[in-house]
């Protein structure tokens, strides 16, 4: 969808409204922000916005999972994390107020799956914990603590005992937390 930079066609707007969890106002706002991001790119009709530009958004700038967000929602063939407008809508829809728990947990799983292999193994979990605890040295866990933490996580959530957490096990863990839906939200 390259299109004109100012207006979103009405039928497209209603289609997006039906297929995503966003309201009309949210889609229009997303369109406005996306056009602003697009404006600086070379040529007004390049429909993809590069990852660096997306990451300048204030809602994503400080988020430790920002790069993974771009990679998960990007449908670009070059796997460079660039998003077109529909990918951007996908991102906002998954993080919106009315998205279901299944959608959110599905995308959360994909975001946490750093090597994109369909399961969360020990390496993924280690990277996840490092993202959560931050980059500075005094907030990282020691190697011993990390090992203990990962083995405890696998013990708690790995039901079929294959050493990795797959999507069903992940969703089973998530279903125990009522706070997940409210904390897995981004509002523009």
């Amino acid at each position, binding site marked *: 969808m390259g299109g004109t930079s100012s207006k979103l066609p009405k039928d497209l707007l209603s289609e997006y409204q039906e*297929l995503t969890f966003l309201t009309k*106002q949210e889609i229009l706002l997303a369109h406005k922000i996306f056009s602003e991001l697009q404006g600086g790119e070379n040529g007004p009709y390049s429909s993809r916005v590069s990852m660096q530009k997306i990451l300048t958004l204030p809602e994503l700038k*400080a*988020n430790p*999972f920002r790069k993974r967000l771009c990679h998960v929602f990007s449908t670009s063939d070059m796997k460079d994390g660039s998003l077109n407008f529909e990918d951007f809508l996908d991102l906002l829809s998954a993080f919106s107020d009315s998205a279901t728990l299944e959608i959110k947990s599905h995308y959360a799983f994909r975001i*946490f799956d750093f090597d994109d292999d369909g399961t969360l193994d020990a390496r993924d979990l280690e990277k996840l914990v490092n993202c959560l605890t931050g980059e500075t040295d005094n907030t990282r866990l020691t190697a011993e603590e990390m090992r203990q933490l990962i083995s405890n996580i696998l013990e708690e*959530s790995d039901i079929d005992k294959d050493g990795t957490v797959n999507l069903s096990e992940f969703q089973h863990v998530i279903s125990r937390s009522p706070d997940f839906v409210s904390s897995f939200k981004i509002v523009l």
Partner: protein
Amino acid sequence: MAASQIMELTSSEDEDQDQIELEAIRRPHRAVKFDMKHANQEDLEAQHHHEPKHTNALHRNNWSSSTQRVLSSMPSRSIRFNQSTALSRSTKTRRRRPLSIVSTSYCATEQEVFRGQEDCVDDVTQNEDLLNKLQGLSAAECVRVLREMPLSVSEKRKIRAWFDFWDAGQPLSANRARCCHQFKAWFLKVLCGGCSGRVSQQKSIQIWQGVLKKISAHFGTGILSYFIFLRRLLHYNILLFFITSLFLVLPQISNPPSSKNKSEATAELWMLTGMGILTDSVMFYGHYGKSTNESCKPEIKLCPESYNIPLAYIFTIGAGMFITCVMLVYSISKSFGKSFRIFKTTGNLALKVFCSWDFKVSKKQSVKLQSVNICIQLKEMLSELSCKKQKRNLYSTFGWLSLHFLVWSICLLCIAACMLAVYYLHPYIEQDNHKLTKAIDWLKLPLIVSCISHLLPGFFDMLSRAEHYGSPSTQIYVSIVRNLLLKGCIFGVLCYYWLKKISVRKNEPNTSQCWETLVGQELYRFVLMDLLFAMSYIILAEFLWGLCIRNITLRRRKLEFDIARDVLELIYGQTLVWFGVLFSPLLPAVQIGKLFLLFYFKKTSLMMNFQPPRKHWRATQMSAFFIKLLFFPSFTGALACVIYTMWRVKPSSDCGPFSNLASMLLLGKKWIKGLGKSKPSMLWLSWAYNNLVDNPLFLFITAGLFLGIIYIHMQVLDGQKMIISKLQEQIDNEGEDKKFLIAKLQALNEAGAQQ
């Protein structure tokens, strides 16, 4: 398949089973795998028990290639979204079920088994499959199902285009049938008001949306829940205000009664005390007359048809309370559904790691703080797991019990002292024979009550810190209980005083006193003083004290927001308003103004003086808990007092709409009973009232039915819990089976390779 071959082999080599010995491979950085040296069940269990900390996982780095292939094609490993399976699951039932995303695709490549999933799936057959399943659905259903699938928007649009294209080619009769179905669906949707989940349209026009987003960006979901609670209370008050003003205040304003006595037109601080001009205004009960045209003389102007104010009074208050009740119960049921989870006692580390990141926080400083908090919490949880719990001996148990007993008795004594103070400081007790002319005397009691209800809970919190509770959530619940007890007792004493003492006072022969107006004025003063005290508390204790703390302590610490205490303050204020609406129909308007001011004051103070919370606040659960508290005891207490007033307390005899009746509800009863005679067309209503509402048997039967339904639901819930635990056991057992089979497979492959 390799697996079936193994099964044949093992069954034929039964006698060799005991001789199969697999060595436990120890990897230095991984956990120990299971040891198949002992084939006995007890030995296996003993080994499990012996090494409880290890993950006992099925993970080896040098499985043979055929084992790898089997492992990688297992459904749990090759999970990816399968559209048709998801569709079949979600269309089977209208109830929400988790989407099945187990794929049955088989990947032939060995090395790239975990990557390149798109190569493995046959897209064309999947899409045909999908279309077949979608055929049975209407367009609206199709859209709903598509929305809930985790595909990208472009893929969803393609599917929708195919569906529309296919749809257009259908014969006319099928179209007509679908048309009716669509109309029915649309009608139901309109009726249910968006039950299918499109209520998000209304959310975008909620007030304070931008401000709340800013708060959540800095402080996270916990503190946001306080402001959302405040907004919810605002909605309830706006609703109550609309109802009372439309049906009660406006008719009375448009036809004011002749003023019976020129009351003191000027009184100092009339706005604060509610006296003076406000006494005989629509603000309070005493102003309302029996009907709107009692002072209308037919020869002077055209008299409008009489609007029965007393009846309107009863029905307005009743309708307002009923609608508030329905809305509260609906909110409780929704939040209960969100917060109800079957919790395991262990297993919180995984939950913490997967669910604790709050994506709403977007300021860099707050993100850093969140990371630090999560790190500290993880370290605490790990250290708790590794160190053993101290065994309490008799001496320390006794000490712990006596400490708790001491603190509780101090708290209860304080509460009793406050109750006595409130009772005896009441101005009417002091008054006796002389009038209180100074406005400040009227304000003494509300000021003292506000002081007590704001400051004493802080004192209770300080005491509870000395108690060293085991978990922070216990501490929060105990402090909430103490706070509630305090506020409930104060409210109880006030109600007792008003309904028992003031209402039966004998007035002086010359002055006409409306006890209802007096009570209304008291409540008005309470609400206003609460606001003033809260604002001055914010200015003094938060701004000034926060400034001192920031500059004096070396670490420049800011204050911490006590969510529970502030929410209980809001609940207490709302209880007063719900009780006071009977005596002062415009009190909800005052409360609306109060909530607005409180919101902006609190928000400014929060931004300047507070830091993001250090402890994790379980927002969903605590919000559900506070809504329940709002319903019981706050709303039910106020409702009980209102019903008691309308039913048992004699209205004052010379003012107000119910001046010559024994109780307010008697008017309603008389009216309904007389309705049959005056308007024959409404005889059914009168009959219904006499035989259904007034008949205790009918009420017993309906109550019994409700209890029966609740019991059935509870039994169903228990049954489901049992099923869940049985399924959990089954999964564990199948995991054991899988481990066994894979190890056997590996052993046979190795044995085969050696030969």
